């Protein structure tokens, strides 16, 4: 496997093994970009306490190749149950309509 395939495989593993994943610049506590900070804030507002945040500034594979995974060229990107939800605009829009909370609640409900 080449670098790109390895990176895409890692992304696939991460987003399918965890109900909620946020790829962002920086961390939820110390976001390095306004949009990433906003995305983390939206998840917080949804009441998600446990989710996987991947700092793309420390993950070269994700930084270089995430855009190919779901054909979406910008950070942040939020995945729920392996599906791309979108970036911070979409997250905020869905949150305001009450849709994101529902999706997350469903995804993180005990089996």
């Amino acid at each position, binding site marked *: 496997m080449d670098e790109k395939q390895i990176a895409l495989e890692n992304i696939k593993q991460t987003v399918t093994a965890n109900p909620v994943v946020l790829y962002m610049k920086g961390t939820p506590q110390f976001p390095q*970009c*306004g*949009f990433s900070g906003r995305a983390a804030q939206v998840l917080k507002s949804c009441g998600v306490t446990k989710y996987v945040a991947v700092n793309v500034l420390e993950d070269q594979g994700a930084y270089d190749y995430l855009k190919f995974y779901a*054909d*979406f*060229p*910008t950070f942040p990107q939020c995945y729920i149950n392996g599906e*791309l*939800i*979108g*970036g*911070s*605009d*979409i997250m905020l*829009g*869905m949150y305001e309509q009450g849709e994101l909370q529902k999706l997350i609640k469903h995804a993180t409900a005990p089996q």
Partner: protein
Amino acid sequence: MKVTPENVRDFILQGLACEHIQVDGDGRHFEAVIVSSEFEGKGMLQRHKRVYQVLGDRMEKIHALSMKTLTPEQWAGNQ
């Protein structure tokens, strides 16, 4: 070369017929309101993907783009 809001506006218009488009920004962060009948029947993710598809490699130069993607009907309701 620094990208201007007018550049972003023109890039989008080259590939997407818009009823209305407004782009503001400082050369690094842009905010766009894009109204197109092409968005009808599409979810937000598909609408954003459509705009990114039109922008293609030029997204490399556009650091961040915040978008409101509306159908003409939604736009009329927003006024």
